[in-house]
């Protein structure tokens, strides 16, 4: 009923690189992966930048039989899944696949396929829609494809709750392992950039440059003017501690706690009161039996959003007021807001803890609050406890507590 949950592998398809080695080089090297979008024409948009995934060759990871049925997001997720299992050193042939699952978070799913399907429906009529596209319009397609490719018959679930999707997926997966319902779960999330989706984001989600100034993501920056859209997928291999120990696996860190909370909020927007966000962090710390003074680093949800960054800054100020200040880093400054980013950000935190180094937040020179933002260069520091925050519009908050190898 109360098994401990550890991270034994990670798979990443991100703007900062494919696979954790390239990702780590770029992440800790302070690379900013936000550039003018190449994937589609941005002439008609005010926003033109994005954190795109480049040089992704899914055929290196996925068998031809299933690859041709997959959309872009499913390919990113399935690739991440295979990489995470390989990184963890799990030999599928010697393992009970009923005990291995996938829990995916996605905020928007395969927006490219959905727009194509709907495009035919509303242009040529319902009798012309392509049945081949149908399975991939559903949010749980990526987890389904990955399960088929890898033959994973354990718990398979998809969380679909805005910017908190992937962090919630990790909390859910940890809950299942803790209760003994699975030994291994690949957990995290992914979202993609696509033209119509970008239209919606630009029109209704206040992308940079809101003030007509320079377009860039500046998490916690005084001169922030909205998030930049990003994409990517990241999955952790979560495993019960006993399973990891029994096969002598390398453990990156433990998922020692998680906290979830909500606050009344305007539709699709953020509340002003930081109480619920503070509460999510407190719940995560309580579960892991640590106090604010024990937290060495925070992976902030901050994206450059006007209201959301202010909310998080206030929550951090409130929680750590008068005490030791954790090193705060905001990866969305390097990759953009990729919504279900919790898998990627948790992998980054696992690397921080494992290697004792906290990555910088590109784009930030002048933070809004009295918090210790790691800005220009990464910081070498012993890291025992880190929190990963999710702060979703509509007032949903999740915090994950990661802890050094138990």
């Amino acid at each position, binding site marked *: 009923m109360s098994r401990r949950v550890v991270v034994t592998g990670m798979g990443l398809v991100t703007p900062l690189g494919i696979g954790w080695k390239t990702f780590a080089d770029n992440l800790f090297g302070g690379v900013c992966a936000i550039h003018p979008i190449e994937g589609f024409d941005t002439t008609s948009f005010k926003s033109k930048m994005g954190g795109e995934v480049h040089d992704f060759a899914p055929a290196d990871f996925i068998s031809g039989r299933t690859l041709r049925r997959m959309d872009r997001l499913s390919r990113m997720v399935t690739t991440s899944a295979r990489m995470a299992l390989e990184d963890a050193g799990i030999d599928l042939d010697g393992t009970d696949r009923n005990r291995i699952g*996938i829990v995916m978070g996605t905020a928007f799913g395969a927006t490219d396929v959905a727009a194509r*399907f709907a495009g035919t*429906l509303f242009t040529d009529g319902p009798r012309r829609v392509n049945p081949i596209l149908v399975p991939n*319009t559903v949010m749980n397609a990526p987890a*389904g494809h990955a399960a088929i490719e890898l033959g994973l018959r354990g718990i398979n679930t998809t969380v679909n*709750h805005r910017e908190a999707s992937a962090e*919630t997926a990790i909390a859910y997966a940890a809950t299942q392992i803790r209760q003994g319902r699975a030994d291994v779960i690949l957990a995290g999330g992914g979202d993609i950039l696509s033209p119509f989706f970008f*239209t919606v984001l630009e029109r209704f989600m206040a992308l940079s440059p809101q003030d007509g100034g320079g377009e860039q993501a500046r998490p916690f920056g005084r001169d922030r003017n909205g998030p930049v859209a990003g994409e990517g997928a990241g999955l952790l291999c979560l495993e019960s501690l006993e399973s990891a120990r029994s096969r002598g696996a390398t453990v990156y860190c433990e998922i020692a706690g998680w906290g*979830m909370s909500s606050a009344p909020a305007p539709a699709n927007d953020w509340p002003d009161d930081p109480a*619920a966000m503070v509460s999510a962090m407190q719940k995560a710390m309580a579960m892991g039996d640590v106090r604010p003074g024990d937290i060495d680093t925070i992976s902030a949800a901050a994206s450059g959003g006007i209201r959301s960054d202010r909310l998080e800054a206030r929550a951090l100020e409130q929680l750590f007021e008068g005490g030791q200040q954790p090193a705060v880093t905001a990866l969305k400054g390097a990759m953009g807001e990729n919504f279900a980013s919790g898998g990627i950000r948790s992998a980054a935190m696992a690397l921080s803890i494992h290697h004792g180094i906290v990555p910088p937040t590109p784009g930030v020179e002048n933070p809004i609050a009295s918090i210790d933002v790691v800005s220009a260069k990464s910081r070498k520091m012993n890291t025992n406890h880190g929190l990963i925050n999710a702060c979703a519009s509509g007032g949903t908050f999740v915090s994950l507590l990661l802890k050094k190898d138990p």
Partner: protein
Amino acid sequence: MQSDRVVVTGRGTVNAVAKNVDAFATALKAGACGIGPVTLFDTTDYRTHTGAQVTDFDPREHIPKTFSLKRMSRSDCLAMAAALEAMADAGLTPISKAIAADTGVIIGGGAGGMLECEPVFARYLESGAGRMPGSPFAAFSCASSADHIATHLKLMGPKTTFMTACSSGATAIGYARDLIRLGNAEVVVCGGAEPLCRITYSAFNALHTVDPDYCKPFDRHRRGLTLGEGAGILILESLTHARKRKAKIYAEVLGCGISCDANHMTAPDVNATGAAGAMSTALADAGIATDVVDYINAHGTATPANDMMETRGIKAVFGSRAKRIPVSSTKSMTGHTLGAAGAIEAVVCILAIEHRFVPPTIHHDTPDGDCDLDYVSNGARDMAVNVVLSNSFAFGGNNTALVFGRFSGNRGAG
């Protein structure tokens, strides 16, 4: 507070045969059919024209004027209506600040605000982004139902939305139970909601899985499902908390099992390995043997493949006893409400326990050699129902099974 028992203290639903729980009990006993012409949108150019639509749904009959409906989709309104009914049923209207602080919202979603976004998208295709009104996109995500419920009721606990197609609602209920058992919440508003919309309607038609008339689960002449819409919401609560506030207990959530076919994106695995796996895991989780199950609320979509596969799965799990257990598909009445189905059917199970009856499979007229269980074809059956298994199987091979039981104060913890 780990391992506390989890009980059902409130129920709410809006669906094609009933706009509240009491009316739903009556409709289930009568074998009412909610299938008729779809009028939410023009179906002239579609292959089929019927559905299990919630007709004459006026959100204002369910949602007080103090709460703006402006940024809510039809799906959000269905979810909110069912949630408010369930909260009132649980005696949590109004909810105290102390209880709200420990109350979560876990919803299984589907098409969300798609119905409202479709005409906007159509206009975008015609005349570009310049003419695109923004407000429908505020409710596009199926996450907005949980957001509205939590915001309206000022709930501060865990909140999330699952989207595993046709098993979303059941998965949400399973997670709500986990949160309570692990002490992450005392009370959880959980369930699912689904609207009829053009995208879903055309997608299922493109796959030729829709019966042009009405669905006939387990019948030899079955030709597919009937799409439906609605919402089902339960209030789950730790037994300790329910007792402390002297809440009426309708049933206990005994078990949950989740598995994946890992076989095909849309077609069920003919060997029923995943389906049987979810059922046996749920029974093992409940700590009960197969011989105490009184009734199985089937997934029973009425597609040729599902009903044969599910029958096979039930036989694999229950062996020689399979033919003696009443199995019914209430989708024959409510249609297949996709993301809401597992939650609406959870309400069915709880009503069956409370009112001591098994709801029928209507339109089951001609036996099929591949489907040879007791499908409760001749109307509802009065009988004691103490333990119920409810199946939900989905695209992506996502299977969830739930076990509900009559609440008995004497049962051992866990």
